[in-house]
């Protein structure tokens, strides 16, 4: 048996992050007084360096390593970069919030780093086992983070709910994977795709497994009918954790769907597209309608997130129609663009919640935004950008995200679902505009000036301005998404 030592170069960023997590753990164990600030600084530095490593190893080619279990392509690189940025931004936004509640213990940053590593592993996985391990690494870290404020009953309850339902979803996914393995005899995604394509695998067993795969993916994305955990977790978790849970893992979920469904089950596209169509339509309807009646802004954003994920799936399910490869790349890139835009918007929205929260006070209620224009005209304007973008009002990035997804849905012939999506987002615009109305036309109940760190103020402004800027110039990012999918390992 000849064993060739694998090429570590494509996985440099993952190996660096894993090693640095251990280093940070050791350093902070011995640094008593400065452990909190030091672990924060080290976590941010690690993410920044990992981002540079990913940036330098970025190119158009496709590399496999670790016996074909790891794949490095432009798609993975772009997604990883967005994940780093989202986690770094979430840590900056959440820092003041955590410090005010004495939650900024080193474990918080260690778990965040490990969750990031799990997402990276999912993004670059080319093997069912690796995909599953990455998913578990991310999910387990997130369960612990949600319950991190263990003295708060709502936080632990949210963590428990997330854990029990998440474990069930992981079980479903694993069961589906075992069926796929039973039918195709391989855990490697290209080999699975090949067996599916050549009809050498048993159809009934594959379809049976596929149902479970779609169920597991739907849970991780938080779409109907697997959405029950989303509002409770977003509301119950410390807002700094909600920032992390709501942004980067959605992209990792998209990577899971792309690698598993597009990469592995492309031959069964007709079937999973139909399943996803039902899921997406139900999510868009339920998310928008339920968000109308929420009083807590975190619950409102959770339901809006459900509908946004439905939109993202709309891009994913418009891929295969008439065997046009160009159409497929366009549809998947529209889903990727939607995912990136949603991560930006949700970070800014929850960033605003942390901005308004003080020590011992969570600005959870929508009423807390009343008269924000009087208290801080600048941040009222920033929140206006975010809400307009989420509602899909031109010309913000959310508008273009919806536009490209709808374009690909119509190109694939799903006219009715596109009309349904437009009608529902018009209804949904009400709850975003209600926040704007409260900010500009109502008297403030709380006239205290906003206390927040300088870095939070600057980065939040940059984030909201980026939403506006990307809405004016979406071309570069759209091209990048398209390029990433055309050159990805999925295209082959």
């Amino acid at each position: 048996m000849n064993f060739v030592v694998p090429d570590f170069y494509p996985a440099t960023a993952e190996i660096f992050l894993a090693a640095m997590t251990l280093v940070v753990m050791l350093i902070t164990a011995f640094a008593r007084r400065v452990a909190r600030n030091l672990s924060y600084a080290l976590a941010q530095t690690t993410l920044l360096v990992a981002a540079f490593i990913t940036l330098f190893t970025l190119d158009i080619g496709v590399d496999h390593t670790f016996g074909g279990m790891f794949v490095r392509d432009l798609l993975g690189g772009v997604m990883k970069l967005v994940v780093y940025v989202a986690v770094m931004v979430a840590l900056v936004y959440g820092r003041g919030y955590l410090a005010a509640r004495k939650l900024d213990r080193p474990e918080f940053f260690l778990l965040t780093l490990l969750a990031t590593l799990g997402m990276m592993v999912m993004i670059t996985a080319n093997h069912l086992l690796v995909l599953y391990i990455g998913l578990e690494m991310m999910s387990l870290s997130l369960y612990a983070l949600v319950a991190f404020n263990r003295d708060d009953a709502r936080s632990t309850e949210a963590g428990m709910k997330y854990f029990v339902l998440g474990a069930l979803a992981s079980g479903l996914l694993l069961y589906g994977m075992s069926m796929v393995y039973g039918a195709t005899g391989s855990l490697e995604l290209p080999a699975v795709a090949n067996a599916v394509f050549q009809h050498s695998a048993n159809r009934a067993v594959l379809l049976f497994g596929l149902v479970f795969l779609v169920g597991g993916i739907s849970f991780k994305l938080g779409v109907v009918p697997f959405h029950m955990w989303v509002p409770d977790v977003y509301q119950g978790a410390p807002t700094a954790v909600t920032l992390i849970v709501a942004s980067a893992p959605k992209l990792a979920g998209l990577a899971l769907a792309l690698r598993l469904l597009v990469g592995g089950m492309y031959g069964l596209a007709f079937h999973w597209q139909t399943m996803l169509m039902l899921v997406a339509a139900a999510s868009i309807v339920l998310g928008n309608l339920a968000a109308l009646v929420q009083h807590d802004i975190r619950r409102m954003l959770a339901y809006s997130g459900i509908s946004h994920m439905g939109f993202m799936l709309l891009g994913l399910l418009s891929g295969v129609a008439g065997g046009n490869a160009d159409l497929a790349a366009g549809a998947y890139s529209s889903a990727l663009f939607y995912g990136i835009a949603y991560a930006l918007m949700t970070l800014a929205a929850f960033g605003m919640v942390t901005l308004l929260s003080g020590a011992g006070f969570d600005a959870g209620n929508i009423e807390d935004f009343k008269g924000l224009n009087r208290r801080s005209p600048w941040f009222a304007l920033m929140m206006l950008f975010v809400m307009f973008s989420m509602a899909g009002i031109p010309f913000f990035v959310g508008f273009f995200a919806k536009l490209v997804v709808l374009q690909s849905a119509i190109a694939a012939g799903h006219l009715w679902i596109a009309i349904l999506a437009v009608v529902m987002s018009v209804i949904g615009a009400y709850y975003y505009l209600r926040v704007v109305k409260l900010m500009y036309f109502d008297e403030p109940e709380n006239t205290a000036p906003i206390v927040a760190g300088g870095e939070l103020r600057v980065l939040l402004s940059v984030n909201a301005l980026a939403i506006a800027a990307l809405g004016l110039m979406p071309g570069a990012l759209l091209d990048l998404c398209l390029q990433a999918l055309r050159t990805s390992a999925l295209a082959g």
Partner: protein
Amino acid sequence: MAFTTFIFYVLAVVLVFSALRVVTARNPVHAVLFLVLAFFNAGGIWLLLSAEFLAVTLVMVYVGAVMVLFLFVVMMLDIDFARLREGFWKYLPVGAFVGLLLAVEMGLVLGGKYFGLAAMPAPAPTAADFSNTREIGRVLYTEYAWPFELASLVLLVAMIAAVSLTLRKRRTDKWVRPETQVAVRHEARIELVKMAAEKEVEPEPEAAADDAAKA
């Protein structure tokens, strides 16, 4: 019916029975002991599949270490199990109905035909000196090195999460850090303060003014 098939059915029946008893036993200690039995029988089935290493590991790790620890936890923790299983019998009919329905549906879809010997032929018997411990070790540290290392990090996540969610410092503990005790200097042990032996107390001017007003 071959002898191994007979053994398989014995092991399988005991396994299913003990797994059911794990969730239905009223006494938690009995439930844990039934779980031990279930693991033991699963180990036996793996042995029939000639996965000797995994079978031995299952018995050693799960029965030997994990379950004994579990037994201690069940015995030491003061959990009100009667309250935990409150509603168990109330929800049992619905749960059993849904579970049975799912199992029957899944059975109808899959049946035995896709995983029978015709669809998946039995692998060729291995040579007498074939060591599956060696084979597992060979792929685990070479081809599967990436997931293997990642799995160790998942265990690290579990460790950090468990410690950060449960470890708390008690206010009442009398634990002293030895290094601070050793590093103490004599100035810190005792402080000499110089003060006058007597101190004259001046009458408060406000009180005096009050008295004057009353007078």
